[in-house]
């Protein structure tokens, strides 16, 4: 079977990269010098790397202080850490969808606010695990932003961000009733005389029990009938309206469950609650969580274990994450995930501190890389496995984008780019320190001797100088960083 061979390849890939890059941690001459960044042991670093968009020095410091378990608890209660945030998102993200839809170029402005907000939060929020889960659910309940820009602002705030650490059933009901999803999958057109099956099908195939969850075409039809009359009315608070006139009030049978005639909106609620509580739903979503946080092919026993936690906690998300992120398989999966383009980009931003003022500049990078936020058209969300992303053009664009990003002047008016990279590099005093500090910043560890020698030859044009002249530093730090971001190890996390 193709899958097992692919699995093998991705494992061997990770192993090869580790062998080449994960040098021993023993002391060497250069290491004796004081270093800019605090260090974490491999397991701690792996934990921080997976639950975040890239490890920053302050994360290591805090986690070293608290220990992994306590740090995870803190991450699972983001209200306590949000106050540490040092950035502001657009006030438009607080607007409800009708307000966000008002005014000239409202759609475009809403798009800019959403995409900028996503990047800012992923890059700068101290509540990293929370933002990772927001992204997970945005993929799971994918909605393309085109034509739905104002709705999406509201959807993310009122549904995804509200329930990202909450209970799955609440989120599912919130999604079903939100105008963004009602429009995106056409349920607003689902009426008794002409049922529209788009949402009903995806509700089972993608949102709950999965394509192998055991439903038939007849089940799709019955679920669509149960959801007739669920539509949008701008007069209603939130925009959801159940239209009894358009609801099919006959009885229905789906997945062997009987819905008596004449129950109106309760039909749809019964469908959502039933689907949310099924073990197939636990399996389907927990497997996706394992793929997101552990590896492209998690073991069935891990999925079973996590799905068991889901079932015994009625779809509460925090206990599921706790079990998953403290599992042995999670700990053993160091560097086994391929960074998606957005992961890659934000990891670069987190390492360098690069900020864009100009949305189009940033967006053009993300388009070239292949993952502009909220632009995936099919309802299944951006793919999450290496085989979907590791291709020629994707690699080339990473190499070129990393170079372009790091070749910008440190403060450039045209692109609105700003970075405090030199400060982050800890003002290195010599060439080896520059390389070591850069490696620490990017990988959390120093490189093996062979790689360091390669890089030293590169930044000194083969002369191997020890003295870091101002000229050399200014000319070479950018391409050195670009090389680290282009390296195979940085493609993994």
């Amino acid at each position: 079977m193709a899958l097992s061979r692919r699995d093998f390849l991705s494992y061997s890939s990770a192993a090869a990269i580790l062998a080449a890059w994960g040098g021993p941690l023993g002391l060497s001459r250069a290491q004796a010098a004081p270093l800019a960044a605090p260090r974490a042991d491999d397991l701690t670093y792996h934990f921080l790397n997976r639950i975040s968009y890239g490890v920053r020095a302050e994360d290591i410091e805090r986690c070293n202080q608290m220990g992994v378990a306590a740090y995870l608890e803190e991450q699972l209660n983001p209200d306590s850490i949000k106050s540490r945030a040092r950035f502001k998102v657009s006030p438009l993200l607080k607007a409800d969808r009708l307000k966000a839809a008002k005014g000239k170029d409202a759609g475009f402005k809403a798009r800019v606010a959403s995409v900028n907000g996503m990047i800012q939060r992923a890059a700068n929020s101290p509540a990293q695990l929370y933002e990772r889960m927001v992204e997970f659910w945005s993929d799971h309940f994918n909605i393309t932003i085109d034509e739905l820009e104002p709705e999406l602002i509201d959807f993310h705030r009122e549904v995804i961000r509200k329930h990202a650490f909450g209970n799955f059933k609440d989120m599912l009901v919130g999604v079903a009733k939100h105008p963004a999803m009602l429009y995106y999958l056409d349920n607003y057109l689902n009426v008794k005389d002409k049922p529209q099956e788009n949402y009903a099908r995806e509700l089972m195939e993608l949102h709950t029990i999965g394509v192998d969850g055991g439903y038939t075409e007849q089940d799709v039809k019955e679920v669509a009938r149960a959801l007739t009359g669920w539509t949008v009315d701008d007069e209603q608070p939130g925009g959801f309206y159940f239209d009894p006139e358009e609801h099919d009030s006959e009885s229905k049978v789906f997945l062997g469950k009987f819905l008596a005639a004449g129950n109106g909106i309760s039909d749809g609620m019964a469908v959502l609650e039933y689907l949310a509580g099924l073990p197939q739903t636990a399996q389907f979503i927990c497997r996706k969580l394992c793929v997101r946080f552990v590896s492209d092919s998690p073991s069935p026993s891990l999925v079973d274990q996590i799905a068991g936690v889901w079932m015994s906690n009625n779809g509460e998300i925090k206990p599921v994450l706790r079990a998953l992120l403290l599992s042995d398989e999670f700990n053993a999966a160091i560097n086994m995930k391929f960074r998606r383009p957005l992961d890659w980009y934000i990891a670069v931003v987190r390492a360098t501190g690069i900020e864009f003022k100009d949305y189009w500049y940033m967006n053009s990078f993300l388009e070239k890389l292949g993952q502009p936020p909220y632009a995936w058209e099919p309802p299944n969300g951006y793919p999450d496995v290496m085989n979907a992303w590791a291709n020629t053009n994707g690699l080339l664009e990473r190499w070129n984008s990393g170079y372009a990003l790091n070749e910008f002047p440190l403060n450039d008016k045209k692109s609105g780019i700003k970075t405090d990279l030199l400060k982050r590099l800890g003002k290195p005093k010599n060439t080896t320190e520059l390389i070591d500090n850069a490696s620490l910043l990017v990988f959390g560890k120093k490189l093996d001797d062979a790689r360091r020698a390669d890089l030293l030859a590169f930044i000194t044009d083969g002369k191997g100088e020890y003295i870091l002249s101002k000229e050399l530093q200014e000319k070479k730090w950018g391409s050195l960083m670009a090389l680290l971001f282009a390296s195979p190890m940085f493609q993994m996390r």
Partner: protein
Amino acid sequence: MRRSLNIDSVFGLDRPHLFEVPKSVITEDSAAMVFGPRAATGPQGDILICIFQRGGMDGLSAVVPYFEGKNYYDRRKATSVPAPGSAGNAALDLNGKFGLHPALAPLKDFYDAKQLAVVHAVGSPDPTRSHFDAERFMELGAPGNKTVSSGWIGRHLETSTTINESPFRAVGIGSIVQTSLRSSVSALALPSIKNFRLRMRGDQVKKIQTLLESFYHVAAPTDILGKQAKLTFDSINTLKAIAAEEYKPANGAVYADNGFARSLQQIAQLIKAEVGLEIACVDIGGWDTHETQGTLEGSFNDLLKKMADGIAAIYKDLGEKTQSITMVTMSEFGRRADENGSKGTDHGHGNAMFVLGGGVNGGNVYADWPGLAKAQLDDGDLAITTDYRDVLADIVKNRLANPLVERVFPGHTIKPLTITRPRI
């Protein structure tokens, strides 16, 4: 179908490029690329060049149904094309019923040489008038179905028996691959031959390439990343060789100085370099002519000219090779029969397609013409009597030599057409 919004007002007219490239992104699974060495072999069937006119071409002005008389001319005061012979500058007669817009004159030669077929009242049966949904449905080859995630060309490549492991097997000109190319067969997004390289300072390129080749173990790749890196460098080297020579089009062909012509020229370069190209997709945007569309001059005229000049240039340039090349054009929908109050046309339904190549039964207009009288229109638009999938299926079966057309267009009962001849 989503609630219809006027896209132009949502994004502002200063962002017309939204329709020049598709929003699609990547192939879903590039497993097929992972295994085995690649041998650059050519296709067993024709090379297909697929041109997508983004924004919705006004088929009623491109291929003019002048024989409709009042039914056409009364609806179109500011946007109609005069019947052949009725004015100095008028439609170029095709068959006594339909005429080509004079800006398409370069294509008329191919029609007369029986290499160009015109299909009319053709399109995607899904009623959506949303650009995004209509483009996606058309490219997926599955109108109305949002669960199909691979494109029609992608499925052709998946089901084709051709052994072709060239990284240039399927190329989308642009920074992201067209939705129609999505599948487990990885397609190459190629914005430009010249730019598919390490875009770095001259004094650093070579050093960085050497380091990356060492980092990724390109000499003896053992893993996915290494293999992909090797492919990337191989492609860079191939394209570098192509880009190094100043390109001289053959047979006196002249490519105009615009993005569309440049894209076609690059396709010609890849074809002549015999790098294993089977499918090339290219977009031409700007067809969303809601305002001041014009008739014999103006924006629509200029666009048609750009398209026809580009197609004529590559066709001429490729000379004898066109015996094994098929080109096809499509657009997500046509435009309303009645023009609007801004001397333009709004989103409609039925449209025209062009099929060009050595294996085409050209010199014909293929149209089961539904008529333009009020009762004959579909919700105010030209009705669709030919499903665009039948046109493409005809090409896939006859010219691309792939009999598995049912798998290329799932859920569609294919109606056989005779627009192309089977390859011998």
